[in-house]
């Protein structure tokens, strides 16, 4: 496939306090084999070499697992292809001559730091509140002394693969973090190791979620549709069940 020419409309914002605005860039020579982030690398190389300010964005592993990258692309978190993070989104999915609109996550709890970089530390604070099993190093029993039904273990894994990117919050009209929180609650609720402090955990995490300013869930399902790891909505049902059981 030949190289493409694109028009990019990208959110530029100097820092958390500054007022942001869209800037337009024309970019030539985009290979369909590039990833979306490599396309932005090319843009930045051109900008820097022309003495202009590059676009700031978070990224790291570039293999869809660290959860660093994430941007709103043409109205979708991580772009229009389901099940992919931005770093895995190939330019094959775009057309020559297309205009692509790129924005940061928009949520009160994720303030913009610069351009496409947002502050997601609210997620960490929710995990700090209770996203753990209290076992001290050295205190664990022999691994096979804990038997776990294979189905439960597999289901726990499916919940545990959340990468903490924040797409669920960005996709939600309420900027709710319920899918994120429910994934962790589900993982531990499904495992015998997590049962002992299940009540304390769900109460603490839900309370912190509120403190961090995330909205409530109104069951729209946009989070599930946009989650690059395809975490399922029924985790939220399980979260609610766990929460009711906790009082």
């Amino acid at each position, binding site marked *: 496939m030949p190289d493409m020419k694109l028009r990019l409309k990208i959110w530029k914002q100097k*820092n958390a306090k500054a007022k942001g605005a869209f800037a337009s860039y024309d970019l030539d020579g985009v*290979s369909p*084999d*590039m*990833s979306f*982030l*490599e396309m932005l*690398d090319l843009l930045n*190389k051109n900008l*820097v*070499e022309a003495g202009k*300010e*590059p676009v*700031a964005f*978070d990224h*790291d*592993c*570039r*293999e*869809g*697992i*660290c*959860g*660093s990258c994430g941007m709103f692309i043409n109205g979708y978190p991580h772009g229009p292809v389901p*099940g992919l993070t931005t770093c*895995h989104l*190939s330019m*094959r999915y775009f057309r020559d001559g297309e205009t692509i609109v790129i924005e940061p996550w928009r949520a009160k709890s994720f303030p913009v730091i610069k351009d496409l*970089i947002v*502050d*997601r*530390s609210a997620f*960490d604070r929710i*995990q*700090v509140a209770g*996203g*753990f*099993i209290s*076992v001290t*190093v*050295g205190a*664990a*029993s*022999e*691994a*096979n002394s804990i038997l*776990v*039904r*294979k189905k439960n*273990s*597999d289901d*726990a*894994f499916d919940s545990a*693969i959340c990468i*903490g990117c924040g797409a669920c919050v960005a996709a939600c009209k309420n900027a709710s973090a319920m899918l994120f929180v429910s994934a962790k609650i589900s*993982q*531990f609720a499904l*495992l015998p*190791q*997590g049962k002992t402090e299940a009540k304390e955990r769900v109460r603490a995490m839900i309370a912190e979620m509120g403190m961090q300013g995330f909205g409530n869930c109104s069951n729209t399902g946009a989070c599930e549709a946009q989650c690059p790891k395809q975490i399922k909505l029924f985790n939220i049902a399980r979260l609610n069940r766990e929460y009711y059981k906790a009082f």
Partner: protein
Amino acid sequence: MITLNAKIPEGPLEEKWTRYKSGSKLVNPANKKKLDIIIIGTGLSGAGAAASLGELGYSVKVFCYQDSPRRAHSVAAQGGINAAKNYKNDGDNTYRLFYDMIKGGDFRAREANVYRIADISNQVIDHYTALGVPFAREYGGTLETRSFGGVQVSRTFYAKGQTGQQCLLGAYSSLNRQIKAGTVTMYPRRDMLDLVVIDGKARGIIVRNLITGEIERHSAHAVVLATGGYGTVYYLSTLAVNSNASAAWKAYKKGAAFANPSFVQIHPTSIPQLNEFQSKLTLMSESLRNDGRIWVPKNKGDNRPGNDIPEEDRDYYLERRYPTFGNLVPRDVASRAAKERCDAGYGVGKTGLAVNLDFRDAIKKQGKKAIENKYGNLFEMYRAITGMNPYEEPMQIYPAGHYTMGGLWVDYELMTTVPGLYAIGEANFSDHGANRLGASSLMQAAGDGYFILPVTISGYLSGEIRTSRISTTSPEFEEAEKGVRERIDKLLSIRGKQTASTFHKRLGKIMWDYCGMRRNEEGLKKALNLVEELKKEFWSDLLVPGEASDLNQQLEKAGRVADFIELAKLMITDALNRKESCGAHFREESQTDDGEAKRIDAEYSYVAAWEYNGDNEPVLNKEPLKFEFVELKERSYK
């Protein structure tokens, strides 16, 4: 010259660690909270150490460059984590794991350290399981295992192709528990830019706040580097693109010896490069070699699609050359064999720089569902990147820079040659010799962080209980901060024409061509000159836009590339010095008649620990490797 004292305890192999623990000094619980420990890095080793030390009651400060500790690159490890549980009743035990690692590392690792990590492996699995890591399970509810390269037992625990992520999130959760308890303070989005040494002891670090650009001073009674490896020196590698060597490099320049820097593992199964602008290579887990068969066409120039090439026209070259281990030979062997076939003109794909990894037979035998259960997410990742469906046609793979066995020299206590400075996980050199076996990195990182460091560091800190909190206003801190500021100003003031990434890419090409899978004296000498020229060009033609007092990703990158260029020189120097082949270090001058690596034990049975010497050539210190418990043998997988 520094003195290398490995401090290996006396006694039989299996008793050394127990004896050490019995004799080690402890710190009174009341004193622990008065002792500060800095940890840089939040991967399996760093987060594990932070949690463990926090639980013990020390005051721990943890730093990482990512926005959250959950993103450290341990997250990307795929295939698994080893332990000598012998759940499969296939004859595994601690000694066998130890021996496999010693042999896999081509007899260039320290016996005592390797035995200890093998011994601890079972505890690591117990701990992660207790933390709720959802490892794969059998229908009866017990833990499942699989095989990995270089071994004949099934000892690898896994969580599909995301074992690293699951273990890291386990470690992150235990770190979070300590943050909540108040024993650990987390400082994300910080780059360590220098180590502060006072009266010969590591006493703190200088970091740059990556959001505000502020330069901060942090002090402690001990500093722990858990900063991972330096495989990104090749530019294209399986590492996170921001992974860097800077913290370890600063430590080297402050007196920590750097051991075996040329020992780099090139992983055999990565997705090949697809375009010139590519920024990284994505790994396809080694576990795939359990079921996938590696082959190239028997006839040169056979351009038919893989599925159209009949059995008789396929060369399953690993099965042919290594009938005992077949597709499960260690990584270095598999990588060189792939390169050999491609260089000889039998490669497949657009560029000819790829070989097939074929699941046709496995799917036929076990069914698509079974393969999907084991590797589903890897297959999807492959499809997303390449647009090809591995359920229906062979994957194409090629070697890529992956893991660095070399790293900061540490003694048995994991302390570097700077008192009070420790290196754990991939950042140290100690356990994998000249080649790491698959699924041993998570094991080592977790073992170092959770179980070894917390024991050994208490011996050092017991001598520090009378040292009050370290002030950050001492001349040493002043000077270190001044140096950091001057360098940032210099990087910004060049205002040349080439971006830091451009230099990084050029450096990577030199290293891949001359200091990669195969090395020879002529090439290495040439590379040394090329890197020297690149260094001059870097410091005269670098272009970094923006300011220091702002979020400036180009500036971050420039500092890292400047350090990579210096490290590259040391890697080449080390590769030149070691005229033998061993493990991943393949010197063309030293090979057997059939092209296998040939060690020269009489001359090179040592750890090369390089000491910084200002602008002069680095000084080579040798730690002789004594093999008291295993017999040195030719490493054969035939």
